[in-house]
């Protein structure tokens, strides 16, 4: 199978990427937030909410209060959940799925590579030049 041609976009030094914050990379039509998850994984997310297109990488990275018995409050998954700054939908930064939804919408992730302590995004060649028309990455 032919591997699609891809290009690398420099994000920056690996050490720059910290938990709880996105570094935003804009190039052409691409707008991508890159962050480090608690377990060290580097996560690159399209900076556009699948719901109504908010710049989701400006939202809160935190935990979630998972379903619990009436009156009980639990807290879980600190640093792994992204909350949209517009309508507050919660997204799982591990899987990209909207939380607790039977048919979830999804974040779009991009591949990253690390080479000599630098992080690069891997995108299809020419991706930054193409008009990005779809309203949802779901």
């Amino acid at each position, binding site marked *: 199978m032919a591997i699609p041609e891809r290009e690398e976009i420099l994000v920056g030094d690996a050490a720059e990427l910290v938990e709880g914050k996105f570094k935003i990379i804009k190039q052409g039509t691409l707008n991508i937030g890159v962050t480090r998850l608690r377990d060290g994984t580097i996560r690159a997310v399209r900076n556009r909410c699948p719901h109504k297109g908010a710049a989701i990488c400006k939202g809160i990275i935190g935990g*979630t*209060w*998972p*379903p*619990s*018995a*009436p*009156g*009980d*409050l*639990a807290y879980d998954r600190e640093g792994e959940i992204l909350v*949209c700054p517009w*309508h*507050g*939908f*919660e997204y799982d930064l591990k899987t990209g799925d*909207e939380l*607790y*939804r*039977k048919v979830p919408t999804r974040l779009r992730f991009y591949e990253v590579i690390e080479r000599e302590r630098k992080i690069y995004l891997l995108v299809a060649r020419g991706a930054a030049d193409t008009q990005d028309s779809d309203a949802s990455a779901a």
Partner: protein
Amino acid sequence: MSVTSELERGTGSPDVATGIVDCDVHPLLKQGFASLYPYMPLAWRERFERKRAGQAAAGLIMRFAHPNGFIVREDASPRDGEFAGSDPHFLVSDLLDANDIGICALNSLQTGAMCAVLASADESLIIASAANDYYIEEWLPIDRRLRYAIVVPSQDPNASASEIRRVGKHSQICAVAVPPIAIALGNRYWWPIYEAAQELDLPIFLHVTGAEGIYAGAPMPAGGLPDTYIERYVTLSQAAEANLTSLIMNGIFERFPRLRVLFVEYGFVWPLPAMLRMDRLWRGLRHEVPWVKKSPIEYVAEHVWFTTQPIEEPADPRDLERIVKMIGVDNLCFSTDYPHWDNDMPMQSLRMLAPADRDKIMRQNARNVLRLS
């Protein structure tokens, strides 16, 4: 056999097992408040007689009086000078026999209003028990098709639970009518009632008592005091919307997983915006109420039913069909509201629906809600 032909034939002896189920019929005490005296301890009877309680039990303030004078149908009077709904024998022939109704749920608003706010909390306990005994003894033996929603003194949830356990096992008791007061239905105040109702497999009936917007302690209409009967009538579903939201957001159906709630006589168009709005907001705000474990729309589908009367009548009847589908064909239950003026009678109701859907609403769904033994 098609629903229509069966309906139009008018069998004269509708079957309890297959006839139409009418989820909202309003009986009246034959002699008014005095009908309850034989069912009260002497001391209470003397107290009520001395204070002329029968006169205090009257209804609406002037602005909310029906512009035609009565809310009951004059053509449903058993005999001249008798109030519609006060004679069970007449009701059986006029409503059940004539309309192929196999089961009707009797829902006493008259005592509901007394229990909610007209009487004191102590008095309401006596009134609720007396009214329940009155209907159980004077109405239910007359016909198996007559079923009764016991009224509870909602000013005292623990006493309400005791009353449910006292009379709730009777085989013709089908529900628990909880007269609304100004405490939202998701509040923990109500837990003892839900616990008892669930224990006895009885659904909760919610229905206006007529005290809304009139007496302190009753639910108030949102936005301010209406001026007229029509204005008040239109806005009565506000309280239903608030209570549906309260039940779901407080996790009542997680806490009482077998609880069933029937919203009676609020109509069935109003839940739609509430359901859509709850679902949409739940996606972003659910962490405030994490005990709401799934979309509010799913809780409605599993735990909540709505009676059809008073049916809205859009110019294009297909619009109503669409709304029925959006609310859930399985969650609507037919009701007449006999003998009130704004009744919906079976022959005319919901004719735009496919026969199978109409059959669910007229006959089947209520059998999943009411306790029918």
